[in-house]
């Protein structure tokens, strides 16, 4: 997993509550044998005017001009501003896979669905919960100012606005540590690499037939 320390990114405001995982990545894409490559189909039903299918090229599909992520000013956004209960619905890990593949590294919302929130951390995305008024204010500023970007400093647990304001946020210390160091579950286990190797050396002597 990529470490997450400080992130400076363009903000895309998705002004809807209760965005569920089926909206983030529709179910027909779950047949895939992959966990990457979902980015072009993130928010598929909102983003395109036709129906998306796995294996179908997305290049010449008709875009929905009304969908916020299709607007020129939000191209390249990596910070998603969202409303309450973001990521509700099924537990599919394909949702954070799709958002990450699209390019989002931070999602700011007043509240998140629980499983989705956990899944974000596993996939290198930082979900930040802020009070509803603060989120409201960020939405207003993002709509008014083209090129609106935020700087998220995980170590300091602050978000800096373009005018230099600092907004503090909470994050679980263990999760913060994993993100800062880019540790996934495997990364954490690999901190025990010396012990695993020592065990293996001993086992190789005791049960050599397992190593042939």
């Amino acid at each position: 997993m990529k470490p997450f320390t400080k992130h400076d990114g363009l903000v895309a405001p998705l002004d809807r509550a209760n965005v569920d995982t089926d909206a983030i990545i529709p179910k027909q894409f779950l047949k895939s044998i992959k966990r990457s490559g979902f980015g072009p189909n993130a928010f598929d039903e909102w983003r395109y005017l036709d129906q998306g299918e796995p294996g179908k090229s997305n290049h010449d599909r008709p875009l929905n001009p009304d969908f916020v992520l299709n607007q020129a000013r939000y191209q390249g956004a990596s910070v998603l501003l969202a409303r309450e209960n973001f990521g509700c619905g099924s537990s599919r890990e394909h949702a954070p896979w799709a958002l990450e593949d699209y390019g989002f590294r931070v999602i700011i919302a007043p509240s998140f669905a629980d499983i989705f929130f956990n899944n974000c951390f596993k996939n290198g995305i930082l979900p930040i919960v802020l009070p509803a008024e603060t989120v409201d204010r960020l939405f207003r500023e993002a709509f008014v100012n083209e090129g609106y970007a935020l700087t998220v400093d995980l170590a300091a647990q602050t978000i800096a606005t373009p005018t230099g304001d600092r907004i503090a946020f909470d994050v679980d210390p263990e999760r913060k540590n994993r993100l800062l160091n880019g540790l996934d579950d495997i990364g954490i286990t690999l901190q025990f690499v010396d012990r695993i190797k020592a065990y293996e050396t001993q086992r190789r002597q005791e049960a050599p037939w397992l190593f042939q």
Partner: protein
Amino acid sequence: MARTLYDKLWDAHVVHTEPDGAALLYIDRHLVHEVTSPQAFEGLKLAGRAPWRTASILATPDHNIPTADRDKGIVDPVSRTQVETLDANCAEFGLTEFGMADPRQGIVHVIGPEQGFTLPGTTLVCGDSHTSTHGAFGALAFGIGTSEVEHVLATQCLWQKKSKTMLVKVEGQLGKGVTAKDIALDVIGRIGTAGGTGYAVEFGGSAIRALPMEGRMTLCNMAIEAGARAGMVAVDEKTLAYVKATPRAPKGENWDKAEAWWRTLVSDAGAAFDAILEIQAEDIRPQVTWGTSPEMVVSVGDKVPDPNNAPNAVKKSDWERALHYMGLAANTPIAEIPVDKVFIGSCTNSRIEDLREAAKVARWATGAGRKVAGNVKLAMVVPGSGLVKAQAEAEGLHKDFLAAGFEWRDPGCSMCLAMNADRLERASAVPRPRTATSKAARGRVGVPTWSARPWPPPRRFMDISLM
């Protein structure tokens, strides 16, 4: 201190224990198939990692594999992609794979033991719940999810909490025609599908020691249907003899060393279990499931139960829903239910010994001038592996099946999960297809299915389908 078999297997594999009891366990053996591995391999590649120890891995496609006309390839593009992805991943990382054209290809849980890849005293995992099968060899074997498959590939370890231990002790002699699967279904009927939750179950007692290795595998395979984390049987002469005859068995000095250790893989006298279930072998009768869960089981001579006699309201509505789904009426004698399809196979019962038993019944039927009945739309035998198939043909078993009207197919999971083309079409008209197979779960093959326990199929049950 006296230790159980599970304690010994556990202790031998702990790399590190956290203060909260979570232990990092070393994994000796990893079986890989096409369905649960693609995202794991992809995750590995995205992180720039590689399998920790390639020699610990054996891969084979089984779920999506056609059991007929294999030379024509896989028709369904989604199935084909999964199988090709496994091939590509194995080639990329240099893993041993028995591909679709390899004569050794088969169901993971059949080929592991057959190759001597499954060995006593090992920890063995696979992205498939029925991995408990391998516990029959005095091994600690259990199923894992895709993210854990990736974890084992990358680290050769898994984080686990120690389970409680349960001893299922079956003493005495099984009645005629009563098999390992009847023991499994009888146990599940007694403790329920969640009765084993949180436990590692050891099967012991004279009736278990009398079982051949195939029977012990069937039993451990079904431990998962009781909710257990793992099932296991202590090592004895039969275990050693079976392993010694496999291609990957340790040789020479290594064999002696291995054997000495393997012989210690039994629960010590006086070892304490958290739970003990004692069953008299003589009390076990041939079992058949009538519903949508393996705990909905009765003996062949019984009737379909009446929801009005259910022990409580929850069970009553469960039974009612199951009867409706199966299209069965309460109180119907089991022997009077017509069978629409017969599937002999799956990792529960598709080894050579199982096929020999089934072939006996087929031979008996043909000898009596009988064949698969006209109301049976499909009767198929799917061997567990290419080697099982070859052995069966060398013994002429396929002729017995063909003469009785069965189809003789190529190895794979087939109708068990129905990811390949062997799907049952649900008839809109009554009667619904009813199938005799090893699994009973709602919608698993897309239609009502019975776990006709099996081999040999209860005489009277078989009468119905062979009339």
